[in-house]
C-alpha cells in the first residue's frame, strides 16, 4: 500500500499537468482566465489605482459627468487636482473608486458561494448517492428546493435576516446546492457500478476510505466546471439583490449598489449604471468563458452533451 501511494500521486500529478496543458490550449480558458486575473488584480490593488475613499460623500460634487475635474485638499493644506474618470453619483461619491472597490465584494461573493455550494453539495450528494436509506429523503428535499426559482429563493432568504455579507452569501448558496447534489449523486451512482469499486468493496475497504479514494477523484473535474458556473451566477444574483435594494447595505460600494443608486437620475446620468454594468458583465462573461473552456478541456463527455 505504501509503495502504491507515491506512484498514484505521481500519476495524478501528471494527469493534472495534462489537464492544465489541455485547458490552456482552449482560447476561452486563456481569455476568460486573463480577464478574471485582471479583475482580481483590480480588486486587490484598488487603493493604489488612483482611487479615493469610495464611501466619501461630497455634496458639492454631486452628479458630475465622467471626465469632470475636481480639487482635493490634502491633509497638509496643499491642493491637488484630479478627474472623475467615471463621474460622481448623486451623493458626490467618485464612481471610479466605487466601481474598483466594488470588484472586491463581487469576487468574494462569487468565490465563497462557489466553494460553499460545491462543498455542501459534495457532502450531501455523496451521502445520497452512496447510502440508499438517505437517497429518497434527500432527493425529495432537493427536488422541492429546485422547484423554487433560484433568484426568488435567494430573495426570500435575504429577507429573513438583516442584510449583510454573510446573509447574502448564505442566501445565494442555498439555491445552488441542489444542482451540485444532483451532479455528485449521479457520478456516485455510476462510479459504484465500476468493477474497481466493487473490488474495493469486496476487499473490505471502509466506506469513508472508499468515498475518499475512489468516488471523490471522479467528482473533481465536473465540480470545477460546475463551481465556475456557480461563481458567475452568484455574482449576477448578488448584483440583482443589491440592485433591488435588498442585498449588501447600500453604503457599501458594490456594483449592484452603484447601479441601484444610479437609477434615480438614469435619464440624465446613465454612466452610473453603465460603468458598473460593463465591469459586472465583463467579469461574469469571463468566468462563463472559463467555465465553458474548462468543460471542453476537462470533461469531453459533458461537452458533447451540452
Amino acid at each position, binding site marked *: 500500500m505504501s509503495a502504491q501511494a507515491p506512484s498514484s500521486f505521481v500519476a495524478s500529478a501528471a494527469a493534472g499537468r495534462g489537464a492544465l496543458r489541455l485547458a490552456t490550449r482552449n482560447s476561452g480558458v486563456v481569455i476568460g482566465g486573463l480577464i478574471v486575473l485582471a479583475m482580481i488584480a483590480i480588486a486587490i490593488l484598488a487603493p493604489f489605482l488612483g482611487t479615493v475613499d469610495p464611501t466619501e460623500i461630497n455634496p458639492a460634487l454631486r452628479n458630475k459627468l465622467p471626465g469632470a475635474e475636481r480639487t482635493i485638499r490634502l491633509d497638509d493644506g496643499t491642493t491637488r487636482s484630479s478627474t472623475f474618470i467615471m463621474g460622481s453619483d448623486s451623493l458626490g461619491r467618485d464612481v471610479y473608486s466605487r466601481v474598483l472597490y466594488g470588484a472586491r465584494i463581487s469576487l468574494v461573493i462569487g468565490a465563497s458561494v462557489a466553494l460553499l455550494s460545491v462543498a455542501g453539495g459534495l457532502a450531501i450528494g455523496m451521502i445520497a448517492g452512496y447510502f440508499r436509506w438517505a437517497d429518497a429523503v434527500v432527493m*425529495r*428535499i432537493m*427536488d*422541492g*428546493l429546485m*422547484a*423554487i*426559482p*433560484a*433568484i*426568488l*429563493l435567494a*430573495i*426570500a*432568504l*435575504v*429577507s*429573513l*435576516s*438583516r442584510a449583510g455579507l454573510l446573509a447574502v452569501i448564505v442566501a445565494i448558496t442555498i439555491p445552488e446546492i441542489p444542482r451540485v447534489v444532483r451532479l455528485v449523486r449521479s457520478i456516485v451512482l455510476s462510479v459504484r457500478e465500476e468493477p474497481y469499486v466493487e473490488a474495493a468493496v469486496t476487499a473490505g475497504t471502509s466506506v469513508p476510505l472508499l468515498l475518499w479514494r475512489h468516488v471523490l477523484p471522479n467528482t473533481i473535474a465536473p465540480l470545477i466546471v460546475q463551481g465556475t458556473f456557480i461563481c*458567475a451566477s452568484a455574482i*449576477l444574483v448578488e*448584483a*440583482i439583490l443589491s*440592485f*433591488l*435594494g*435588498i442585498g449588501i447595505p447600500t453604503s457599501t460600494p458594490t456594483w449592484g449598489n452603484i*447601479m441601484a443608486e444610479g437609477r434615480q437620475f*438614469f*435619464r440624465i446620468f*446613465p454612466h452610473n*449604471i*453603465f460603468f458598473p*454594468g460593463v465591469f*459586472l*458583465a465583463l467579469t*461574469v*462573461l469571463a468566468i*462563463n*468563458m472559463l467555465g*465553458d473552456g474548462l468543460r471542453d478541456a476537462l470533461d469531453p463527455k459533458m461537452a458533447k452533451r*451540452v
Partner: protein
Amino acid sequence: MIAYVLRRVLATIPVMLVVAVFVFLMLRLSPADPAAIIAGDSATTEQVAEIRSRLGLDQPILSQFVIWFGKLARGDLGESFFFKKSIVELIGERIEPTLSLAFVTIVLAVAIAIPLGVLAAYRQGSWVDRIVMGFSVLGFSVPVFVIGYLLIYLFAIKLGWLPVQGYQRIAQGVGGWLERLILPALTLSVIYVALVARMTRTSLLEVLSEDYIRTARAKGQIELKVLFRHALKNAAVPIVTVVGLGVALLIGGVVVTESVYTIPGLGRLTVDAVLARDYPVIQAVILLFSFVYVLINLLIDLSYTLFDPRIRY
C-alpha cells in the same frame, strides 16, 4: 398512458409538499426573529410580542403548521401586513401585468431563438454560428437590469420610439398594452433566447447527422422543409424541455424587469414585500411561482407524445 399521467401528476405532490414545508419553516427557523425585524428597531417588547402572536409564532410549531396548511388547502393565503388586505385579492390585482409580460416574452423569445438556433446548426462553424453562440454566452452574462436600462436608453430616451416605463391594462386598449410591453419583454427574453437558441442548435446538430435527413435531401426535398419539417420536429423534445426549465429564469427575471420598468405585477409585489418584511406575502408569492413552475414542467412532460409519437408511456 393514463397510468403515466396519473403517476406523473402524483409525483408533483411530494415536491409541492416539500416547497410548502420549506416556505413554512423559513420563517420559523430564521436566525433573526422575524417579529423583531417587522417591528423595527424602535419597537417595544409588547409590540414585538403582539406581532409574534399575529404571525402565530407563539404557538407550538406543529400546530402552527397544521393551522397554516389547513388555511392554504382552503385557498386562504392569509393577510398582508403592509397592504392590509387579503393576499388572494392582492395577487388578483397584480397578476395581469405579470402574465402579460411572461406571455409576450415567451412568444418573442421562441420566435427569435428557434430560427437562430436552426440557422446556427445549419451553418455550423460559420460566422452566423459564432455570432449566435457568442450572443448566447453574452446573454447569460449581462444582468437583466443592465439590458433593461440599455434598451430604455436607446429606444425610449435617445430614439423616443417607445414609452420609458409603466404599464397599461389590456382592457384599456391592446395597442398601448403592447407598446409598453415590447421593451420589458425584449429585456426579459434575452436570457431566454440565449438558453433556447443554444439548445435548439445542439439538438438539431444531433438530428442533422441522421440517415433520414440524408434521405430527405436525396429525394430532392427543399432545404427549408428538411430543416423545419424533418429535423426540427425530431429535435423538439429537448428544446421544449428547456423552454419549460427556462421558466425558472423567467420568474427570476420578472422580479427584476418589473422593477426596472415600474410594472405593477407580482415581481414588483415580491420586492415590495421583501422591503416591507411582509412575510405572509413573500410566502404566498414563493408558493405561487413554484406551483406555476412545477405545473408548467408537468404539462411539458405530458406533451412529449405530441412532439414525438414514438414516446409511449
